[in-house]
């Protein structure tokens, strides 16, 4: 008998048929009875005091049913952390970026709503603004918030070992600075919110989210209603990529409008609003100093990173830390110091984005290439020599329970024929490598665990109730696979109620790669709970021990004597006829150091396990135009165990597109002071089908001791390694190491010209 029926198999995802037919409803597709159109008035200034807001004319416009401004709110400041509470959803005193919410209307149609916005008079007193990290830090710079002197929002300090001693003991030391401007999430689905209150004051609200429970609490706080009156509903979500986890002003505004108008309200963002007014990725300036021994092993590393956080904290402490943590997980570095600064500027708000700082990730890796070159060691060997290993403890004291990084390096190297190619390719033809690691969640206080319930029907079907959210990556399918496998049922027998805060228990949400590990484990435990209860009944009936039973194909049977079997439906009925209610419950809280805190105590077990991976990329460059043709990419990740190989491959391929093809070649926001000049699909260039190279996927499985069936994560890391590999390949092709990203053709041309000049002079 095969080990698993569904786990590890490529079963059709349960949610894609309805997406293929267009039946799946996204937030903007909702039509509620008597629904109004909501629109938001936004600040045209990067920094200004709000002197007065006059909404009288707007309120009188026929068809306008509600207008809200800050005076409709309590003016409370919200923050992801208690110590970062700095954002009002409708500001009372001043605006801090172009695009910030100032007022909103709900009207019978879009034209009326837009007209109403134009009738709202806002008097501003324009203030001087800062648009760069440098300007924000300059003495005498305008301060965005009184509570953050010098516009320093967050300062993370990590200091392990003795870095200075390490440098003196190093054979070779180099220091480089790497920069990259903002990238943008650019989810397929522009943000949208629909909200309505019922007669009893219960709020029902739909929006794309990476954690409905993370949205519900702030809504409860702002609206001053208890959590059980806030229902963040399940909805099909068009991508998150690290965003959409926090409460958004649009959520709060929509709820206020619905309350005031006593009618459902829907706000649909334009593509521009999605780019500017939700979150962006941080621009970063990363200075890295690394010392290695003669064999290329890192002895000491000192990193200082300044991140442009925009106007508010958002997930500041986390965003400031994760870029470093990913690298300290991936590579051994006994002596390491990190100073991460998140700086506030009068620009849109930055959050955590999948690649988590291409400059940071590429910087660490490309520096290994540079050091290796000086030592006569090739990039792949440099990775092998510094790779994290199973059983290690990271500098910030996370034990690494399973690590297949070396295996991913070796396998990727083999498949891409690294040895044949590196150093042997024709001019303008290069190959590069990148390695990364990603955690599976982090200490999230009371929100750090997941719980699942399973309801059984008398005909043997079940409903799994869990807070796990699906942003499109396939989490709903994962729940069904796990439940079907554990319970011995078919996927068709499993119904889901997920991501609905009225019904589903708390769950950390889908960002930071924890749904499979934490949520999946909870589902598995809940299913095992059900199984145990059913097994007790069947064991009793057959007069055997519970440990002698198995469940498969809708039957519970004696493992060594399958003829002795009972249908699961019958077992359920049996419980009921014994007047026993039967259901399942499981909860999982990762064994992490709950005292670990981003700023105050950045040490301790960060997450229970980590994934690791390698990407190798091969490119060809047109030396006249600087354009890059990507020939082939090989992506490998230690995912622990592949619950659904094709689903995982899809994550790899999407990661290569986002982190590598887009992140390294074409994606960046262009600015005019605090204004985004490239908020649309024609301005911000995401990769197209015709641009993508051949992608080889190698799934490595180390069977993590704690993940469900050994699974860890697979969604985030390939984006980072792809960025590094693209950077390495282009650098290799030209014999020039790039420090500024993305590597657009003009930069390539400049590098070629400068190199030729140096060669002529040298």
């Amino acid at each position, binding site marked *: 008998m095969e080990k698993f029926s569904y786990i590890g198999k*490529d079963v*059709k*995802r349960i*949610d*894609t*048929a*309805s*997406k*293929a*037919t*267009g*039946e*799946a*409803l*996204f937030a*903007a*597709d909702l*039509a509620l009875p008597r629904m109004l159109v909501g629109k938001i008035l936004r600040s045209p200034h990067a920094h200004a005091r709000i002197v007065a807001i006059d909404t009288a004319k707007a309120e009188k416009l026929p068809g306008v049913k509600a207008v809200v401004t800050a005076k409709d709110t309590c003016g409370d400041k919200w923050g992801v952390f208690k110590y970062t509470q700095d954002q009002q959803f409708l500001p009372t005193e001043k605006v801090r970026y172009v695009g910030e919410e100032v007022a909103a209307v709900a009207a019978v149609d879009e034209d009326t709503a837009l007209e109403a916005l134009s009738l709202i008079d806002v008097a501003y007193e324009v203030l001087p603004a800062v648009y760069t990290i440098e300007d924000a830090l300059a003495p005498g710079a305008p301060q965005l918030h009184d509570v953050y002197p010098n516009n320093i929002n967050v300062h993370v300090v990590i200091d392990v070992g003795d870095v200075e001693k390490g440098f003196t003991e190093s054979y070779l030391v180099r220091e480089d600075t790497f920069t990259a401007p903002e990238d943008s999430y*650019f*989810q*397929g*689905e*522009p943000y949208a919110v629909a909200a309505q209150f019922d007669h009893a004051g219960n709020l029902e609200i739909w929006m794309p989210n990476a954690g409905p429970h993370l949205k519900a609490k702030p809504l409860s706080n702002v609206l001053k209603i208890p959590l059980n009156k806030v229902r963040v509903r399940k909805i*099909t*979500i*068009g*991508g998150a*990529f690290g965003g959409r986890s926090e409460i958004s002003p649009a959520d709060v505004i929509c709820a206020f409008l619905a309350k005031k108008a006593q009618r459902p309200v829907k706000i649909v963002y*334009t*593509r521009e609003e999605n780019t500017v007014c939700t979150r962006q990725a941080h621009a970063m300036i990363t200075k890295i100093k690394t010392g290695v021994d003669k064999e290329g092993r890192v002895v000491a590393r000192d990193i200082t990173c300044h991140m442009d956080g925009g106007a508010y904290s958002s997930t500041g402490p986390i965003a400031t830390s994760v870029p470093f943590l990913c690298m300290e997980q991936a590579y051994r570095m006994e002596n390491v110091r990190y100073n991460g600064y998140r700086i506030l500027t009068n620009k849109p708000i930055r959050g955590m984005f999948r690649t988590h700082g291409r400059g940071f990730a590429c910087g660490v890796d490309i520096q290994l290439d540079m050091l290796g070159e000086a030592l006569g060691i090739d990039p792949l060997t440099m990775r092998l020599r510094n790779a994290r290993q199973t059983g290690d403890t990271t500098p910030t004291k996370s034990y690494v329970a399973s690590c297949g990084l070396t295996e991913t390096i070796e396998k990727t190297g083999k498949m891409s024929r690294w040895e044949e190619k590196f150093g042997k390719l024709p001019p303008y033809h290069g190959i590069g490598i990148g390695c990364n690691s990603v955690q599976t969640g982090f200490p999230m206080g009371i929100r750090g665990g997941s719980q699942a319930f399973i309801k059984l029907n008398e005909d043997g079907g079940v409903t799994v109730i869990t807070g796990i959210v699906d*942003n*499109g*990556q*396939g989490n709903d399918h994962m729940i069904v696979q796990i439940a079907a496998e554990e319970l011995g049922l078919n996927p068709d027998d499993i119904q889901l109620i997920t991501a609905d805060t009225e019904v589903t228990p708390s769950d950390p949400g889908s960002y930071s790669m924890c749904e499979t590990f934490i949520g999946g484990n909870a589902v598995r435990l809940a299913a095992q709970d059900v199984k145990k209860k059913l097994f007790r009944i069947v064991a009793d009936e057959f007069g055997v021990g519970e440990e002698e039973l198995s469940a498969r194909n809708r039957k519970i049977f004696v493992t060594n004597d399958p003829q002795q079997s009972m249908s699961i439906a019958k077992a359920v009925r049996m419980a009921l006829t014994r007047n026993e209610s039967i259901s399942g419950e499981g909860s999982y809280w990762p064994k992490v150091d709950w005292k670990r805190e981003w700023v105050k105590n950045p040490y301790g077990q960060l997450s229970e396990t980590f994934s690791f991976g390698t990407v190798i990329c091969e490119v060809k460059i047109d030396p006249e135009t600087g354009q890059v043709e990507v020939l082939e990419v090989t992506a490998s990740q230690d995912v622990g165990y592949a619950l659904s190989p*094709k*689903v995982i*491959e*899809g994550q*790899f*391929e*999407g*990661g*290569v*597109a*986002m982190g590598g*093809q887009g992140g390294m070649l074409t994606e960046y926001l262009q600015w005019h002071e605090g204004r985004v000049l490239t908020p*649309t*699909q*024609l301005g911000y260039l*995401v*990769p*197209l*089908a*015709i641009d*993508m190279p051949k*992608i080889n996927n190698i799934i490595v499985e180390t069977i993590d001791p704690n993940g469900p069936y050994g699974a860890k994560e697979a969604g985030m890391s390939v984006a980072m390694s792809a960025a590094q590999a693209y950077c390495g390949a282009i650098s290799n092709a030209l014999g020039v190491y790039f420090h500024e990203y993305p590597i657009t053709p003009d930069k390539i041309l400049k590098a070629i010209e400068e190199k030729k000049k140096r060669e002529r002079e040298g």
Partner: protein
Amino acid sequence: MKEMKKTALTLSVNNETYDMVSYPNRTLLEVLRDDLHLTGTKESCGEGVCGSCTVLVNGAPVRSCLTLAVAVQGKEITTIEGLSAGEKLHPVQEAFVNHHAIQCGFCSPGMILTAYALLAENPNPTEKEIRRAISGNVCRCTGYAKIVEAVMSLAEKGR
């Protein structure tokens, strides 16, 4: 301009006739989604770049966000809802599902219709031709690899 008047509008969508009264400045996308509640067609950019709003007009893929509803009267419009026959998926939809070519699903209706139109015109496209044909459909999730595989699988069937 208050002088803009609503006019009678008759659209033929998925072999059904819809009579309505509408302002002339409404796009086909708005009419499909807001008036006919055919929400399978999506808006992701509003400027005709991303392909999420793709519908077929007389069999050819067009950007419904750049098409005036009044301008397509008398033409046969096909949206994603018109592709499947009741509960049975069209082979293109089936291939997308079987090959894991759908993740978040927002780009899928437009992508599927574009693929459908390609195969109707060219039943045996090469990979390069497929990639070019869908180059006007932006997908942020999949990296396009499995979308191309799905369409290739249909091309082989056509052989």
